[in-house]
């Protein structure tokens, strides 16, 4: 058992040719909590995600996961530590079946992923576990459907099932309800609540009602920096935050 915080960033910054996308962000995500990252467009939320998951190298600052400095790791290496992200656009493998999608998340544990001489039938031992995960997200009846044929909301659910297959300690969800209808939003919110038991979740989300229902802590970002941090009730009354939000809403 490490410290109280599962993920910490120390003055994380990212510059793109002089443009400062992320400026001196020190984020602390409590173990077992749901932590939301909100802010107007262009505030640098997704860049923070890309930095934490190592898809982008930071210009300066450090990242600690479970007390270990992961600043210089490769993205796949960090993923194997149990930091699994989702993407803004639904991240599925469209021309594989739903079951195969989840199995990709599971199969690395078999240690046969380089075995090109083995039959893919050797992966069938994973099917039970895969079906369990699909049931958890209400997709069991779609197991043998080619993923490209799923409706959008179902694809996002599949993405969560695949992420769960990795048994991640920290799930990073990038706008999980973006582009969804009302019904789907409700389902995904329930799903996130369900899967966040015993896990830590950091999510970027625009839908404030989703943020209000789910998150324990909220960090508000603006122009690459942290504007405010705290529980929803506190943050939603912060005059600076109100200005940032109302200000952009007026434009």
């Amino acid at each position, binding site marked *: 058992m490490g410290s109280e915080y599962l993920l910490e960033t120390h003055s994380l910054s990212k510059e793109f040719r002089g443009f400062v996308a992320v400026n001196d962000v020190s984020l602390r995500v409590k173990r077992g909590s749901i932590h939301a990252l909100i802010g107007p467009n262009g505030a640098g939320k997704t860049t923070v995600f890309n930095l934490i998951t190592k898809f982008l190298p930071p210009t300066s600052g450090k990242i600690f996961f479970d007390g270990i400095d992961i600043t210089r790791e490769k993205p*796949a290496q960090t*993923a194997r530590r149990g930091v699994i992200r989702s993407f803004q656009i639904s991240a599925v493998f469209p021309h594989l079946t739903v079951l195969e999608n989840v199995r*990709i998340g599971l*199969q690395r544990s078999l240690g046969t*992923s*380089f075995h*090109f*001489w*083995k039959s*893919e039938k050797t992966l069938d031992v994973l099917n039970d576990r895969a079906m369990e995960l699909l049931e958890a997200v209400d997709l069991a009846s779609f197991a043998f459907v080619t993923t490209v044929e799923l409706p959008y909301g179902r694809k996002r659910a599949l993405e969560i099932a695949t992420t769960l297959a990795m048994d991640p300690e920290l799930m990073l969800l990038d706008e999980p309800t973006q582009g969804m209808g009302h019904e789907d939003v409700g389902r995904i919110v329930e799903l996130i609540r369900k899967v966040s038991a015993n896990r830590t979740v950091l999510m970027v989300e625009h839908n404030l009602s989703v943020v209000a229902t789910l998150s324990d802590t909220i960090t508000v970002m603006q122009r690459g920096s942290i504007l405010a941090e705290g529980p929803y009730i506190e943050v939603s009354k912060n005059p600076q935050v109100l200005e940032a939000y109302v200000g952009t809403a007026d434009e």
Partner: protein
Amino acid sequence: MPPLKMNAVAWGLLVVAGLAAPFLVYPVFAMKILCLALFACAFNLLLGYTGLLSFGHAAFLGTAGYVTGHTVKVLGFQPEIGILAGTATAAALGYVIGSLAIRRSGIYFAMITLALAQMVYFMSLQMPFTGGEDGLQGVPRGKLFGMIDLLHPLYMYYFVFAIFLPGFWVIYRTIHSPFGQVLKAIRENEPRAISLGYDVEKYKLTAFVLSAALSGLAGATKTLVFQLASLTDVHWHMSGEVVLMTLLGGMGTVFGPIVGAIVVVSLQNYGANIGEWVIVITGTIFVICVLAFRRGIVGELAILFKR
């Protein structure tokens, strides 16, 4: 028909057609098809199943040809040793070219493979052991395991078929293996594969080396068939031709490249008497295929059968 049953039927057809071919068509023609079909299938492993467009695959086909030719003709080894040497060299070359090229993706990947393959071409043109413009002529087919005289067209044909089948089976198995699943995942969504903890570069490189080695196997065999290793097989035309065969037959289908190779080689062979026009005809077919049948011949047929 379910896809598994369809595959079984296709395998049956392949074996029967392969066994009967030398009695139906000119054996050298059939052997040329087998060599280029294996080449196209090896290429398809990269393009169709990993999503990597290599535009320098002739380098592996041609280099293996030269090495096999040299091993058999100059060093006097038996044909099976020659083929092994050619294949191993192609694999090693694949490791070098692959390591450099997979650092980039998309069009840049294609350009790097093309540039490196051009270097191989110019080296083949200049170096003494390749015979330059003349190539290596009169490569002896020799005796297989010191016993079977490969100058006999039928023996040679079945020897080539006995190379083709396991070569093709390796590709088939790779596609349907745990490794193949990861390759498809990379093809479908590379960032997602990374975020699931896969070191995609290692997978791409492994696929690249496999593809290069099997292309080399095809080139080595081709050299024995024609008793010739020449610049044609390292020229970028050949790299283009393999793209053509794969797209025509059906990229990302198991049997498509074989069909593509049959069509292209037949056109070249039977169209030879109409001269340059064969290039125009091949081009027209290619354009029609790209515009109307994107999935290629086998890809479109598979959709038809599913209905």
